């Protein structure tokens, strides 16, 4: 059995982890509370920007702290709307076809994302993926604590989780595919036999060229990437 592992943000959808978070913050049970939590998140944004550059895992922890105090009910009630408003509209043309093509090959298709599980369930169902490995908020007494449950899905940890997933299912990673847009996912791409860069950032684009990995553009190809590809 083979599987295809897909990073989500920037790979299958043009949004990132921040967009659904902003949606949740903007849709608190009253506008004043929305204003308050958004202001608090804005104040924390320089720290998040720094963490994004240095440590993807730390970035996820800081970002999801914004969910602290939200009720479990509200998280789930808003999930459909968040999916329709934020994620569904941002799916790249061709993403669904690509997932379907992998399914047609008999692959399990697994979304591997730092995004939250209740959104990934909906995305997986919409695209026809068979599963997801995603982050989960810690819930205590029906309220989010603002912490993530371990393991945190980010960077090199994605590779470990994929290995574990494959081992549990007796799946040969040499026959598997992985798709990502980001250099931070090189560990994930490196554990499978068929890595593929999708809408790659410049560093990943360069690496993909060096190792002759396939490069796919589901979105509009940036002019700079196009220029780089012409350089022999």
């Amino acid at each position, binding site marked *: 059995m083979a599987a295809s592992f897909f990073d989500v943000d920037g790979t299958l959808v043009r949004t990132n982890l921040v967009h659904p978070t902003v949606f949740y913050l903007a849709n608190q049970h009253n506008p004043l509370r929305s204003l308050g939590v958004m202001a608090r998140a804005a104040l924390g944004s320089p720290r998040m920007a720094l963490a994004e550059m240095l440590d993807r895992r730390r970035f996820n922890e800081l970002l999801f702290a914004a969910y602290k105090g939200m009720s479990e009910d509200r998280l789930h009630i808003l999930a459909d709307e968040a999916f329709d408003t934020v994620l569904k509209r941002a799916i790249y043309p*061709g993403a669904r076809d690509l997932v379907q093509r992998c399914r047609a*090959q008999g692959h399990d298709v697994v979304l591997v994302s730092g995004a939250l599980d209740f959104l990934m369930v909906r995305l997986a169902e919409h695209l026809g993926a068979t599963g997801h490995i995603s982050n989960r908020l810690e819930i205590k007494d029906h309220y989010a604590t603002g912490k993530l449950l371990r393991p945190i899905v980010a960077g090199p940890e994605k590779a470990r989780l994929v290995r574990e997933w494959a081992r549990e299912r007796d799946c040969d990673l040499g026959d598997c595919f992985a798709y990502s847009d980001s250099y931070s996912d090189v560990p994930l791409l490196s554990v499978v036999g068929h890595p593929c860069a999708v809408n790659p950032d410049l560093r990943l684009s360069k690496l993909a060229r060096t190792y*002759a990995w*396939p*490069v796919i553009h589901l979105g509009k190809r940036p002019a700079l990437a196009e220029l780089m*590809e012409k350089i*022999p």
Partner: protein
Amino acid sequence: MSIRAYPPPSSRPSELGPRSRSRGSHPCVVTLDKKSAPRAVFSGDELLSVDLPAGTRCLYPRPPVDALKDVDAAIRYALNHPLGSDPLHAKLRPGMKVVIAIDDISLPLPPMRRPDVRQRVLTVVLELLADHGVDDVEMIIATSLHRRMTGDEVRHVVGDRIFKAYWPDRLYNHDAEDPRGMKLVGATDQGEVVELNRKAVDSDLLIYVNLNLVPMDGGHKSVAVGLCGYKSLRAHHNPRVMRDCWSYMDPAGSALATSVDRMGRLVEKTLNVFHIETTVNNRMFDRPLEFLHKNEDDWSGTERASFKALSFTLSRLPQPARQAIFQRVPSPYGVTGVFAGACEAVHEKTLERCFAQYLVPVEGQADVVVSGIPYISPYNVNSFLNPLLVQVMAQGYLFNLYRGKPLLKKGGTLIVFHPCTDQFDKEHHAPYVEFVHDVLPQTRDAMEMHHNFEEKFASNPAYIEMYRRGHAYHPAHPFYMWYWGEAGRQHIGRVIVVGADNDYIPKLLGYETAGSFQEALGMASDSKPNPEITMMHIPPIVMADVSG
């Protein structure tokens, strides 16, 4: 290495008189003597000067056939006086759905100087359609599993006016992997599945605009291959069929053509198709490089100096600059024929023109065939001729440039010049890299590849996505490139490559290497002492019509 700059001071043809003589009945077959000048040989995008032994038979391309004086008039005449069909205007009615399919960038080589003859045909056809109230018109570049053409490349072929009016909504590339874009036409009595572009199948009239460079092009291949997908190609693009092509440049002796013809006849029965075929001469090089067509002994002093300067410059330039020099300059082909109407009647005329341009009568086969491998093939327009394409040029196209019997004797030696650089265009030839570095090290046996590797490789979702949305060849294509050399591989005893910049690529391809032509010849003589040697002086294209 004995490859040396041209001309050697002691043997200037202008001082010593003719160095070669024509043998047999044709002026394009020249036998070299001791005083003959070295021959100009392409080694990728470099030009070498090579001393060949006295007695070597050198096969030159025919001079370019005269071009038509008024191409537009010839197009109008062909549309109004079609072969085996009503005139195009009689097939039109207001409101009908018309699809025009157009040959892709693999034809001609190099691309034709503007206006491309397809632009001229399309201009006349579109005017005619408009005059008859036909405005539901879509144009499809018939790429089959070739890479999608870029906007600029399409603009070059169809011209600015048509491009602006139709691209990209009504002028686009065929997509053989669009799950909703293909439609089953049927199957032949041999079980060959014919599945074509849905738009073409659903049209009221399909017009095919072809540019026929070599006898392998055109005819039933236009629609049945150009607009098909993997399911249909499997019927004939496989090692079993390719082994039975003697040669694929001679449709009468080609199992490939036979299979395609069966499928094409089914297409003609089912669809309403009007074929327009055009032929061009072999004027590949324009004035400054025109001397490359000629016998080196007939070069003027200026031409010898030009060659020397060119080969020196090329040897000093980086590879991308050399590629730009040759590939960015379109060729001044002249249009030699325009035929329209029913497929087989039209193609018969086209083949006559093609053979008239390329065939050179040759008496007897050779023990050793020598040739340069140039920088271009149908599959690397605007990109690098990678190692797999070197193979397709050597054991594929070069070997197949004959009618009758192969120029090389069974078990003979093919000596080619090429650096065999381990370099690929990372986008156009993305699946080739894995093929060369992962499949070839496991097997060179085409049958084994076909049975054990092809299907899985050809359905790789990442490569298919690159084919559909990028500009990559389909992942089945590298396998076809290997099969394309299959008849040659079965027939040729040894391939020796001169000037390779590495050993492992030739080894992967099953080639031996030599540091110089003399060394290669020595190796060939081990197999057959005092071999009869023939050089194919290409490009431009020449086909051997071998008898005796």
